[in-house]
């Protein structure tokens, strides 16, 4: 808990109107789209102590400096529209919410870039650019409410990524406030950061001046600090401005095709990627389609396996792409649905959670798999989650990967089954990895996949930067870099009390059942036989409880998630 004095000091930095530490507000800024099992809320400190909404990079800088000095965890936050835990607190602290930094600072039509405050909403940016006949190249499916900075920090792909790539391909430059409070541009990193990554090469070749020089230049040219901050979940600093690539506003022509089987649909999708250049290629499974019908939002498609394919460009380009698409759909025994169905599905591109009503809770999980393995992946998932209610959808990116999103229906009111069901989101990613896939976004829940997600070299680099600028791990702890968890006070007390009660009972039973063995080892004094020995046992329990709760605070979060998964899976089978 932050002290009253600290809360006041933070309020003074950010301004009273842009600060809150009221209970209800703290709750509102401690969640994302996912519902947390109650047990997680009990174990971890999943509620921030206060919320600040800075209005300038300078205010962000002062906040970070203050938090670093006072060891207050900071949780950067866009609009909380992700589901991978990147904006969730684990050690309480201060939520820094960026939505007030929402200006369009510069539209550069000669270089085709736009510089925006990180807190601007994608939808608002797209609307404003449209007035100048411009648009962004790709945007997330959460565009009506997600921030530009949030997508950069969380990473991933979205609408437009089939043609123009994921968020990392959209960024030209970032303004970032480092954990130590420095405001930097990632396109021109400060010398000490460059040297941090270059000096290692000096150490390798201390005697060869010419070679050292060569390495240094290569390193400087290759050193792409901007890419460090994409997918970083704000662990390396808070993104305050983003310079994005933009394009002229062209017409979009959407099509919907439906197929009897997944094989036909996937073959058609593979051909489309070979022969055309769609702006967006997105599919839903038969199960997803059925769920849409169940919530009275049917696709009106003739067949159950459906994809939406949208092209972008001039009329001539669109006509050519349309002709190719028709041929491909026809060749694969598909049906090209009427234009009103296509328009409807295009409008529905922002609404993947229509089916949530069937839960009423949803547990999401997402993984990239190669389009070539999509069929076997879907079959693998179907086998693995037999008996579970779930639906799959996915969009292809420009690298031939499909970001497959699984929605597991659940009911958070069924506390135990809901907790146990958590394994599904974790298992889903493992299944994707088996199909040569990769995690979609790290956040908190996929923190065990950090190393493989970034690659060993890049992970080592970002870890090095983290160590240099945030050695106390103040900024967004437990995200990207696992780090130890910190148990909530009540869970610590629970462990201690439980140990204090359990120890005397165990020692009493041990005395009764294996008293001889204890005596053989000279441990008969441990057995509870009278009031004095009971008090000794309580003392032992108390000591053990304190020790366990202390040790538990050093358990890395990825260890907890990995070790807990088999138990959750078993539990789900029992309680589901």
């Amino acid at each position, binding site marked *: 808990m932050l002290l009253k004095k600290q809360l006041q000091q933070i309020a003074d930095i950010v301004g009273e109107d842009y600060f809150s530490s009221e209970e209800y507000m703290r709750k509102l800024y401690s969640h994302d789209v996912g519902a947390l099992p109650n047990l997680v809320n009990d174990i971890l400190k999943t509620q921030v102590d206060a919320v600040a909404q800075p209005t300038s990079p300078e205010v962000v800088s002062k906040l970070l400096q203050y938090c670093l000095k006072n060891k207050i965890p900071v949780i950067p936050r866009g*609009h909380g529209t992700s589901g991978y835990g990147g904006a969730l607190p684990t050690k309480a602290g201060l939520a820094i919410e960026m939505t*007030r930094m929402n200006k369009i600072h510069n539209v550069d039509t000669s270089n085709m870039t736009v510089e925006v405050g990180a807190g601007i909403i994608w939808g608002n940016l797209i609307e404003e650019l449209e007035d100048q006949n411009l648009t962004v190249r790709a945007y997330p499916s959460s565009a009506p409410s*997600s921030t530009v900075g949030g997508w950069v920090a969380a990473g991933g792909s979205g609408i437009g990524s089939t043609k123009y790539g994921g968020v990392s391909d959209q960024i030209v430059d970032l303004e970032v406030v480092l954990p130590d409070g420095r405001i930097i541009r990632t396109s021109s990193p400060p010398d000490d950061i460059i040297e941090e990554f270059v000096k290692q090469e000096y150490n390798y070749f201390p005697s060869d001046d010419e070679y050292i020089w060569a390495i240094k230049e290569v390193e400087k040219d290759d050193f792409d600090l901007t890419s460090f901050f994409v997918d970083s979940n704000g662990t390396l600093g808070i993104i305050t401005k983003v310079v994005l690539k933009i394009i002229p506003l062209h017409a979009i022509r959407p099509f919907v095709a439906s197929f009897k089987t997944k094989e036909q649909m996937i073959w058609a999708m593979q051909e489309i990627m070979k022969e055309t250049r769609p702006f967006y290629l997105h599919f839903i499974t038969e199960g997803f389609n059925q769920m849409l019908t169940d919530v009275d939002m049917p696709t009106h498609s003739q067949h159950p396996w459906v994809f939406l394919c949208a092209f972008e460009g001039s009329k001539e380009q669109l006509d050519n792409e349309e002709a190719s698409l028709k041929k491909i759909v026809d060749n694969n025994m598909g049906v090209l649905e009427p234009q009103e169905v296509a328009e409807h599905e295009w409008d529905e591109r922002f609404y993947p959670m229509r089916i*949530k009503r069937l839960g009423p809770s949803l547990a999401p999980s997402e993984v990239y798999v190669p389009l070539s393995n999509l069929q076997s992946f879907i079959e693998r998932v179907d086998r693995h989650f037999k008996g579970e209610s779930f639906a799959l959808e996915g969009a292809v990116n420009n690298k031939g990967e499909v970001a497959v999103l699984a929605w597991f229906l659940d009911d958070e009111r069924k506390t135990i089954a809901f907790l146990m069901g958590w394994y599904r989101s974790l298992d889903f990613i493992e299944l994707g990895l088996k199909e040569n896939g990769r995690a979609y976004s790290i956040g908190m829940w996929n923190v065990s996949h950090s190393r493989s997600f970034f690659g060993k070299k890049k992970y080592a680099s970002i870890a090095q930067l983290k160590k240099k600028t945030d050695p106390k791990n103040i900024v967004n702890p437990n995200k990207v870099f696992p780090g130890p968890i910190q148990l909530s006070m009540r869970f610590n007390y629970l462990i201690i009390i439980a140990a204090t009660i359990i120890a005397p009972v165990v020692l009493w039973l041990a005395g009764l059942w294996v008293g001889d063995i204890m005596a053989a080892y000279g441990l008969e004094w441990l057995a509870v036989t009278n009031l004095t020995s009971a008090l000794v046992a309580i003392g032992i329990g108390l000591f053990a409880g304190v020790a366990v709760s202390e040790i538990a605070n050093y358990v890395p979060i990825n260890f907890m998630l990995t070790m807990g998964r088999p138990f959750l899976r078993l539990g789900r089978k029992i309680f589901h």
Partner: protein
Amino acid sequence: MGTKTFERLRESALDVEPLVCARCGFCTFVCPAYNDTLWDSQSPRGKLYQLRELILKNQPIPEDFAERIFKCTLCGACQEICQTKIPLLTFWQKVRQEINDAGLWPKVVHLLDESIQSSKNIMDLDQEDRMLWTDMVDDIVEDRIDKPAKVAYFAGCNISFKGTLAPIGENTIKVFDHLGIDFTILGEEEYCCGNPYFVGGEWDKAKELAIHHLNKLKDLGVKTVVFNCPGCHRAFNEEYPHMLGKESVAGIEFLPFSQFIAWMLREGKLKFTKEYNEVIAWHDPCELGRHQNIYDEAREVLNAIPGLVLREMKHSRNKADCCGGGGLLKGTNPLMSVRISGRRIEATEKTGATILASECPSCMMSFMDGIENTGKKIKFKDLSQIVVEALGL
């Protein structure tokens, strides 16, 4: 009377909706109250999140939260964009009902209630004064009060009692006269339509008013009722049949002014011939647009006027931003209401229009305040005024 905590929501099976909320936040940036503060506590998502916990724990709505619930114009933008199709308009009405059950209605809502109960109108004025708005058209109206006719005009409390809004009613009467329509008005028998009860979530209290009006209309043989106030229109067109059953309104058609004029145009009974050289931006009133899906007729009328240039605001039709006057916000949080209308005035300015037009007395009041507050050189005109001017009446 429901007295148990969240009984109102449970009996309508709406208590599950906060769990159905996907927390995607799409509702936040279309919400005028959220955009006014940029705090999630003010957004539909934030309010649903707080209600979720209260409902799961069966705890009553605390007083400060009740106040925040009323910081809402009931514009319906949240329902329109909702990812999981939560019927949010009804939901917020029911929550307001819960708040009344807990005795936490804002004072201004209680005053409205007392006024309607004692004087049958929202102004707490004598019903004898209800016809003051006809001063400028008394020669047309004097024989029409309580007279059997197929067409009736329902002015509503705002037009009847607020001098600045009276011209809206006068305009409609002038158009009736121009068209030679045999019409009636209810006079002192016109009561509050019950709209404040609907937005306050107290349907039961509006029942008596609804029965009174429908009986009166049937007694006079009315087949068509024309409204300038979308709140009154929605009360008759949606809430009355919802409360009393569809058969209660069988044989009576309820038309907002725009639909009535569009009908006259289509029938060839009305034609605009004079040039009306103005650039106008149209604002869709929430209670006609999102609440009742009525968008086209006003545009049809404006486009039929020679010389008139119609400009659409970036957010129009089902995406139209609210004027700030709905949901009793003008009474409960007047400053927030004025700031919201100011944003709509700024959006009007961006279209290059010099006139902002709509068909709603409540919108008119909000925009007049917004224009004054922002100091913008935009004029507001009600559709009835544009029609009268274009016809040269």
